[in-house]
């Protein structure tokens, strides 16, 4: 009996060790593999441009793009700041607008009945089609672009928050009723915490959409010589066949998108990691 026990114990240890080792390998591979892919792609790209002598106005080499990033930084950085400000402000207003509208809709059936169709109409109308109008009615190009980005970003927050606010556990709702909770208490202590995971899911989508909205708005509104942010810079560079700058701007926009996604994921994790199923690490 005892020998058997010891044997199986060591067997478990070996198994455990193997699993640990695999986990470590996985952790390294998680970073190594994408980096290698990137290295090969950029290397292949550089080699192709150099060997085939591709002209820079058709495909700039990664080296040239890198140089442009450094040389044009004085131009690219302010543009990035503008696009960043546009995106974050749009997202902020989308949170305020989406969340307060969702609360209004769930607090009053009548408000929802009256207003929800228009929220949908706002969402499904392509922002590219509204942008020229906004440009006419709003003096400031920045404000017009902000409105565009807001229009795109607010809907996922609104619809997710509505679902979340309605998803509170029924027994908990009964319990709040038994204890005579006020409408405000039900909202503050039950509906809002229940909605949090849904809201944060919406926020992740809205973050990406706010950037897309900002880029589209800059394309449409920034064209009138108002020279807004990165997207305007990109468009202008394409007119001038300055493909090095075009790629540099494109890379920076991608970097911003990744950064926003990372930030939203971090916010989501910080709010949920203690209690929500989505943030749980499964036992191996």
């Amino acid at each position, binding site marked *: 009996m005892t020998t058997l026990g010891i044997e199986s114990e060591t067997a478990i240890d070996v198994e455990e060790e193997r699993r640990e080792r695999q986990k470590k390998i996985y952790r390294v591979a998680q970073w190594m593999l994408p980096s290698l892919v990137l290295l090969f792609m950029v290397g292949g790209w550089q080699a192709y441009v150099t060997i085939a002598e591709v002209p820079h106005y058709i495909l700039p080499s990664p080296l040239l793009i890198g140089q442009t990033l450094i040389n044009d930084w004085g131009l690219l950085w302010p543009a990035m700041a503008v696009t960043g400000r546009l995106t974050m402000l749009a997202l902020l207003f989308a949170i305020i607008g989406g969340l307060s509208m969702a609360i209004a809709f769930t607090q009053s059936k009548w408000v929802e009945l009256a207003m929800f169709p228009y929220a949908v109409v706002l969402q499904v109308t392509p922002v590219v089609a509204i942008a020229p109008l906004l440009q006419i009615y709003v003096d400031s190009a920045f404000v017009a672009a902000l409105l565009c980005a807001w229009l795109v970003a607010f809907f996922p927050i609104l619809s997710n928050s509505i679902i979340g606010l309605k998803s509170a556990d029924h027994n908990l709702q*009964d319990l709040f009723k038994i*204890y005579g909770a006020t409408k405000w208490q039900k909202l503050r202590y039950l509906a809002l915490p229940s909605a949090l995971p849904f809201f944060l899911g919406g926020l992740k989508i809205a973050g990406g959409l706010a950037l897309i909205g900002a880029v589209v708005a800059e394309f449409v509104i920034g064209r009138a010589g108002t020279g807004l942010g990165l997207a305007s810079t990109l468009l202008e560079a394409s007119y001038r066949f300055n493909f090095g700058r075009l790629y540099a701007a494109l890379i920076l926009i991608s970097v911003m998108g990744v950064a926003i996604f990372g930030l939203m994921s971090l916010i989501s994790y910080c709010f949920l990691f203690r*209690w929500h199923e989505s943030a749980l690490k499964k036992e191996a």
Partner: protein
Amino acid sequence: MMNSATVVQRNELLRMSHIEKKFRGDIVALRNLNLSIKEGDFLSLLGPSGCGKSTALRLIAGLLSPTSGTIDWQGGKGDDDLGVVFQEPTLMPWARVKDNVWLPFRLRGKSFASVNGEIMQALQLVGLEDFQNAFPRELSGGMKMRVSIARALVTRPRLLLMDEPFAALDEITRHRLNEDLLALRQAIGCTIIFVTHSVFESVFLSDRIVVMAARPGRIIGELNVDVPYPRSEAFRTSPEYASAASAASKILEQAMGEVI
């Protein structure tokens, strides 16, 4: 049945008279329900699903109102008179154990600090004072149910309503919680109405078993279990237990026979 229990005149806590509850489409959930609950009762509502036992509980809780008939609380129903335990633990997953237990007070506008003593006492009663800072997901099913009971008892209600609270637990945990519930009741002495579909659970726990039948939901019999508290695990193997269980089963069978 043993008749050793001394007959003490106890005050009536709650009286349901001629309760009729219809749902949409004239489905009769309860027909002519008359029930008098006395202070200190441990009353089980026993019956098959669909017999209206949960409906009766929700009527008492004030979550439903009867189509006709009255429910009278002796001395009127106060704010803290009622505690409820549902079939699921029904905890707020985002709140720590102690904050979950704080809820009934919190909804009355009482700060945590002002009721800290009551909260800790309630957690002690269910043996979870060491888990006050845990989140519900860190607890087992039985422990979650204990938190739920602590929350229901924290205001020291006159009446505790329990709607099949242990039905989803495994048998070992259920037996353990049955005993702990009896010990709890011994300690704080509140009245309990306990909904269950288990004959054995109702016999072990209660001193009054009200048997109900379905279609329409109604009371078909009542049974006293005159075995004095405290009852221990040994009670489960005693002849009194067996005879009470077979008596309750007989009433249930009669009801089922009518339907089939």
